[in-house]
């Protein structure tokens, strides 16, 4: 394995390696071409261009270069968050062998990827994220950094942006999850400034009338014998509590008096209130906003889904559900449910025999991995098969990547089952013939079910 070591320290003694070769390169001689032919790169953190070199590599037009394993040569932990995000890790002369295995694995996986061309920045970002995750076989875990405006930063994912503090990354990751390319798992919930998205905000209680934070809170005292009820300071006379209304001494809580609540007092405007507003003050842009108006965001860890892997390898974003939506005039699930409810009502009156069927490819993840470049063709064919088996009045919705629900109007369950079986047989044939490769045969697993429309429920239709 050819390793490029960018350093200006010529005194470094590289220990001998078995099958790998390390070439030292002074930083002023580095150009992006020199990165192309090596399998991994090590950058000496002591050179002044570390960050620039890293960015240049990661933002390279060429996937091969951008995805290269890059390590930082340093004896200390890396403190710069940007370097942390762009590099694969840290190494030094003693730990050199430890990175070789992972570098080898990354570069092998990278070479199987097809080069992609895209003009669209978002698409580029999405594909690069998928490829980083695929080639590194890793989960995308947010790093916590007090120096980073949003608090949590996603390594690699932000590598394509000019500015590491680009909020679009959060939106892109959320979109990728929605499209089934990533599988998200809740990690933390954060609140961003609604003006600059900064996560560094001061939450404090303020006076609802003058917005000052100069508040104090006091107990409310209720004097039983005279009914006088006011804040504690009105009763305070030295160490004693004396009722200002009836002048008697409050000796015993529970028998003489009680403290039924607390009250806030604003020292700027003397207003009293029990429920202060909670305000957020943004340290970045000095924006002041009520806490309800901050942007609440779920930070997640992400792993790549089978659809995402397919997309990483083949370089094209594809989702069957999305594709079929355009081909079949699918309705949204919520609308589908409403139509079903209406149909149940109508059925009560007109005694019609409508039914609902489900169609599910249970091993769709495997299918996505194998589908390759013919997906559009296969998608079109699938749409044709489904269309042929249904009538124009039937209503279809897609529940997720692999599951379709169909409302068969004025069709009894037996009729629905016939149609579903026809779809199943034809799609099985289509997938077996078109997805299988010479070395691996794809056997689709398709389950179908149908019930009367009034018995509609997901558990009825999709038993585990």
């Amino acid at each position, binding site marked *: 394995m050819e390793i490029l070591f960018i350093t200006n320290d010529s005194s470094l003694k590289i220990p001998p390696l078995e099958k790998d070769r390390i070439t030292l390169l002074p930083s002023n001689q580095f150009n992006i071409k020199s990165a192309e032919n090596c399998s991994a790169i090590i950058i000496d953190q002591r050179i002044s261009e570390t960050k620039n070199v890293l960015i240049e590599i990661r933002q390279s037009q060429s996937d091969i270069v951008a995805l290269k394993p890059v390590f930082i040569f340093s004896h200390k932990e890396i403190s710069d968050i940007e370097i942390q995000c762009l590099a694969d890790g840290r190494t030094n002369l003693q730990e050199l062998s430890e990175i070789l295995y992972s570098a080898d694995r990354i570069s092998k996986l990278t070479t199987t990827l097809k080069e992609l061309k895209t003009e669209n920045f978002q698409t580029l970002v999405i594909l690069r994220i998928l490829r980083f995750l695929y080639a590194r076989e890793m989960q995308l875990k947010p790093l916590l950094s007090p120096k980073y405006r949003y608090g949590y930063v996603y390594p690699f994912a932000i590598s394509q942006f000019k500015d590491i503090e680009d909020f679009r990354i959060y939106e892109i990751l959320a979109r990728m999850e929605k499209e089934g390319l990533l599988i998200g798992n809740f990690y933390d919930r954060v609140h961003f400034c609604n003006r600059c998205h900064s996560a560094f905000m001061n939450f404090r209680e303020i006076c609802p009338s003058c917005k000052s934070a100069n508040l104090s809170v006091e107990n409310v005292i*209720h004097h*039983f014998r*005279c*009914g006088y*009820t*006011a*804040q504690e300071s009105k009763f305070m006379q030295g160490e004693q509590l004396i009722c200002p209304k009836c002048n008697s001494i409050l000796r015993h809580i529970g028998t003489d008096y009680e403290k*039924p*609540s607390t*009250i806030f007092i604003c020292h700027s405007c003397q207003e009293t209130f029990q429920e202060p507003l909670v305000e957020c003050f943004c340290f970045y842009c000095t924006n002041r906003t009520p806490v309800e108006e901050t942007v609440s965001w779920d930070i997640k860890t992400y792993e790549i889904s089978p659809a995402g892997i397919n997309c990483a390898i083949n370089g094209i974003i594809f989702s069957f559900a999305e594709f079929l939506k355009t081909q079949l005039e699918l309705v949204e699930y919520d609308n589908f449910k409403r139509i079903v409810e209406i149909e149940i009502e109508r059925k009560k009156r007109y005694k019609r025999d409508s039914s609902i069927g489900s169609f599910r490819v249970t091993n769709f993840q495997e299918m996505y991995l194998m589908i390759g470049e013919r997906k559009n063709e296969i998608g079109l064919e699938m749409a044709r098969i489904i269309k042929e088996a249904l009538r124009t009045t039937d209503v279809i919705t897609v529940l997720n990547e692999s599951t379709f629900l169909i409302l068969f109007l004025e069709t009894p369950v037996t009729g629905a089952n016939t149609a579903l079986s026809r779809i199943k047989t034809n799609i099985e044939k289509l997938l077996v013939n078109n997805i299988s490769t010479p070395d691996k045969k794809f056997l689709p697993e398709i389950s179908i079910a149908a019930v009367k429309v009034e018995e509609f429920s997901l558990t009825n239709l999709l038993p585990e």
Partner: protein
Amino acid sequence: MEIYDFFEHTKNFLFFWKTAGMMKIFRIFWFFFVFEITRYVIFDIIVFCFYRIKKAVLRNRWEAARLKLKQQNPLVSIIAPGKNEGKHITSLAHSLSEQTYKNIEIIIIDDGSDDDTPQICRQLLREGKISKYLRNDIRGGKASAANFGLQQTKGRFIIHVDVDCSFDRDAIENILIPFFVDSRIGAVSGNVKVKNPTESVCSALQAIEYLKTVTIGRLVGSTIKTLRIISGAFGAFRKDILERIGGWDIGPGLDGDVVVKIRKIDFAIYMEPKAVCYTSPPENFKALTKQRLRWSRSLVRFRMRKHRDIFFPTANFRFSTFLGFMENMVYNVLLDIKWIVYAIDIMIHFPSTAKYIFPLNYLLYTMSNVVQFMVIISLSERKKDELKLAPYLLLMPLYIAIYMRAVRTYAYIQEFFFRVSYKDPWNPRKVSEKAEELRI
């Protein structure tokens, strides 16, 4: 057959009284002629006429007062203490937001509700429909809640309202004007009427009762300066005076108590019939009985125990206050005992004629009610609506003379001999225990 019977009875009835003669009628119904007619009809009409004349004479002064109110435009704090009144709060806030007088702050005091009051109030607060929402997680009783609210007010005038009330658009404006007519006025009572009066017999009867006791009764009391109560439902106070008397003392009966205290420091109480407020009355006779037992017990507790000093010529003694008290005692306590004596009297002395006596008695009371009702209608701002209550006048003697008297007498006995009010869950236990210990 039945119709024939009815005519026969009527004939007998008329014949009986015709032969009996006026003197005998007076002998049997002396009580009605001496007390009821003079007090509730003749006296009321005279005072009412006096009120109208006075008002007409002083018209310019009232107009000047209205102008002064508008010029000074003082901040008015409306406090509404209550527990578990969630369902009423929105309509209260709504009717207050419609007021012609705009410089108001609305403070809701939640005395330990466990219904949806907090959610409703927070919503109203966000919408700016109320100014402040205060809550005691532990219930302290109505006086404590009102005092807590009073502490947090900023207005020059305080208006105490019940949460289950709603108001005519000019109610706040009208209740404030008397303060600008006479600087000796320390508090003004609003005119409380019953919401949806013709919904049930129970509410219709209460509606007529309120018209009799509040609209006319308090107007008369106010005119002859013996008014002894300001409805908790709708009463306005000068804040400086409320603070001087230390706000509300523990209830029940705190509405009357606060008036006594204001009178004791030499300020006048006024009733403004044009400040109209609608209250939601108890919906059935069971709830009504419970409410009235509590009210009546408080009479004993406050008149005869807490404020005994009114009956004695001390430094604070005022003749009109004394008179008001005496009238209240006589017409409520003594007359209740009297009607038992009266019934026994009839039974002993005129046993065979009881069947003639009671119908005539009923007729006389109904007639006096009709006369009084006509006076009320002449004053009413919604004559047409209130005229619809007229048929229910036929039931009023039953309601007032039998039902109310029975409830009242029972309550007096309970309180006088058994001090029941100290056990009423209307006040939290800890408060009642303290009150009983202190004999207040």
